[in-house]
């Protein structure tokens, strides 16, 4: 695709995604496993919050096929991911097991992202090449540029994928990041998960464009919009963007339209600003039944392997929860550590 070209894809309601070439049954079933796992982990996060064990939840429900389709296009060992607070599915695919997500959710001492220092949802873990993330919106797109610039200068061949919501595209850092990445043809995939709301503010009050991807033209890079209910649409667009980045042809802005199936967070009452019929309509766009139906139509998913996946997901979520619930809470005596460099990690291993 040429620079500046915008390929907008309308929501294809009721339409089946043709099965894209080059995706094996095994890959499809792995994607499906992660989609189901992401939803089950997310639902368990809410259970932990409602039962008073977790203080806060920020959810990725509705974003699963978008995230898993996109991150699946990476070389998961070699490439980088800089996620955001809804990236439950993304970090699972990138290598975080459910137990790590629950350690983060319950703010335990062994929470691999922050040792209980950050709110839940702030994912990061060097072992999986997931860069540490903060709460101010959109700072991470610039970090992705830096990771990719280092990859280019060091000739490592790494690609960096970073994710954000459409709400944060109103921040200046979004535009500075696209501009710089375009100048240096950086190997970045800028993923914007457009769920229609910046907490309570609808897209119509956020921007004058119908699609976030249209911004790409202003920076001379490709912008693509895909429907996040169809995982193979997402995957093929991401795969193309990754290939382009890997070739040294520069960044892509990939907008994925998704439904937001929960409130903004556990502290939000979305019925205050979102009409009931719209909340109901969002549920009709839940990507998981769409993907399930597609897999059945393609003859990939059967009663037997669906049951097998469901059982595996349940087992892993239960086990992860148990690991996290029995892990120690952080000791306030450690709260002054790591303001500046220290040679050893919390468990005593050298850094």
């Amino acid at each position: 695709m040429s620079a500046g070209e915008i390929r907008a894809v309308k929501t294809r309601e009721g339409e089946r995604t043709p099965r894209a070439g080059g995706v094996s049954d095994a890959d499809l079933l792995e994607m499906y496993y992660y989609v189901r796992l992401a939803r089950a982990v997310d639902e368990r996060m809410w259970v932990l919050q409602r039962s008073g064990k977790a203080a806060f939840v920020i959810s990725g429900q509705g974003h699963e096929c978008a995230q898993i389709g996109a991150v699946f296009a990476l070389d998961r060992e070699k490439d980088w991911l800089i996620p955001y607070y809804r990236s439950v599915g993304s970090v699972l695919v990138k290598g975080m097991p459910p137990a790590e997500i629950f350690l983060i959710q319950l703010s335990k001492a062994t929470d691999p992202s922050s040792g209980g220092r950050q709110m839940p949802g702030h994912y990061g873990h060097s072992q999986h090449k997931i860069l540490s993330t903060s709460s101010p919106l959109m700072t991470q797109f610039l970090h992705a540029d830096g990771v990719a610039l280092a990859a280019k200068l060091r000739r490592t061949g790494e690609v960096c994928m970073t994710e954000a919501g459409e709400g944060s595209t109103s921040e200046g850092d979004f535009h500075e990041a696209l501009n710089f990445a375009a100048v240096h043809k950086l190997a970045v995939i800028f993923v914007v998960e457009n769920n229609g709301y910046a907490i309570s503010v609808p897209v119509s009050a956020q921007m004058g464009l119908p699609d976030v991807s249209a911004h790409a033209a202003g920076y001379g890079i490709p912008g693509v919009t895909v429907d996040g209910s169809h995982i193979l649409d997402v995957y093929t667009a991401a795969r193309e963007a990754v290939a382009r980045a890997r070739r040294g042809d520069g960044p892509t802005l990939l907008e994925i339209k998704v439904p937001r199936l929960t409130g903004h967070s556990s502290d939000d009452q979305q019925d205050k600003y979102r009409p009931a019929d719209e909340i109901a309509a969002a549920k009709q766009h839940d990507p998981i039944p769409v993907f399930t139906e597609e897999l059945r139509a393609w003859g990939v998913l059967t009663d037997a392997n669906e049951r097998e996946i469901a059982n595996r997901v349940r087992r892993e979520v239960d086990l992860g929860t148990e690991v996290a619930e029995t892990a120690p809470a952080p000791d306030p005596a450690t709260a002054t550590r790591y303001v500046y460099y220290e040679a050893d990690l919390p468990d005593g291993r050298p850094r």
Partner: protein
Amino acid sequence: MAERRYLDAIHDALQEEMTLDERVIVLGEDVGLKGGVFGVTDGLFGQFGGDRVIDTPISESMIIGVSFGMAANGLVPVPEIQFADFIHPAFNQILSEVARVRYRSNNDYGCQMTIRVPWGGGVHGALYHSQSIEAFYAHIPGLKVVVPSTPADAKGLLKAAIRDPDPVLYLEHKKLYRLVRGEIPDGDVTVPIGPAAVRRPGRDLSIFAYGLMTREALAAADLLSHDGIEAEVVDLRTLRPLDKTTVLESVARTSRALVVHEDNRFGGFGAEIIATIAEEAFAHLDAPPTRFCGPDVPGVPFAQPFEEWFMPNPDRIAKAARAVVSY
């Protein structure tokens, strides 16, 4: 020993560290062929090439945010912010990302980065080319702030900053660039981040200063000496971590303290020094610890009489010192 200007010392430190460590990358506005608007990076582009001396768009948040990502992926960025006055769009990246990543990730990630920032007044720069920004940044845990006043310190502190595993805000005073020359030790010599330096011993009061004001305080001490007042001048050099030991030992010797800075008085870095002395050296004091600072207006006004009115100078510092001594 070679005699070099303050500006040359900074240049030399960059050149040496880039030679010693290929991970060190300079980036910023006009740092390439032009060599920076002050000439600090002159020649580096020719020597190290465009991959290691990178001209950026005019985009300060980008400069710091990209540097953060570079540091995460194995490089040692040395971003330049062209004027301290224009660093504010990058405040969020510095405060929320650069300074916090080690703490928030429980030591999983760090950020080895030195942010070079030309700062300070007395250069006909008016409101937006004269600012002091140290109080904002010295307030931030996770960040180190250094403020050299001599060529030797300019070089040694920059070399130490680039090698430091934590982020360092390196404030280089614009007026000192071509104003001062000084001996610089030969060879690979660093100046440790942290320790203050007693530039002039004295018995009657301690004057604490940094950057250009160290020079002004030393000139004030000469004036005071004519009146029989012997001022000790302490060059703080590093604002964070603060060398409390040297500050408190000096006050223990002289029993009087005057802090001088060109930044606005209210909520300035001087307040931290005064509070430290009040809390930890109260029993030694013979006079109220006192600040002499830039006035509380929103910037240095441009016209010559305005600028002269704004900037602390040796006469006015000496006057403030006499008031402390005669309390």
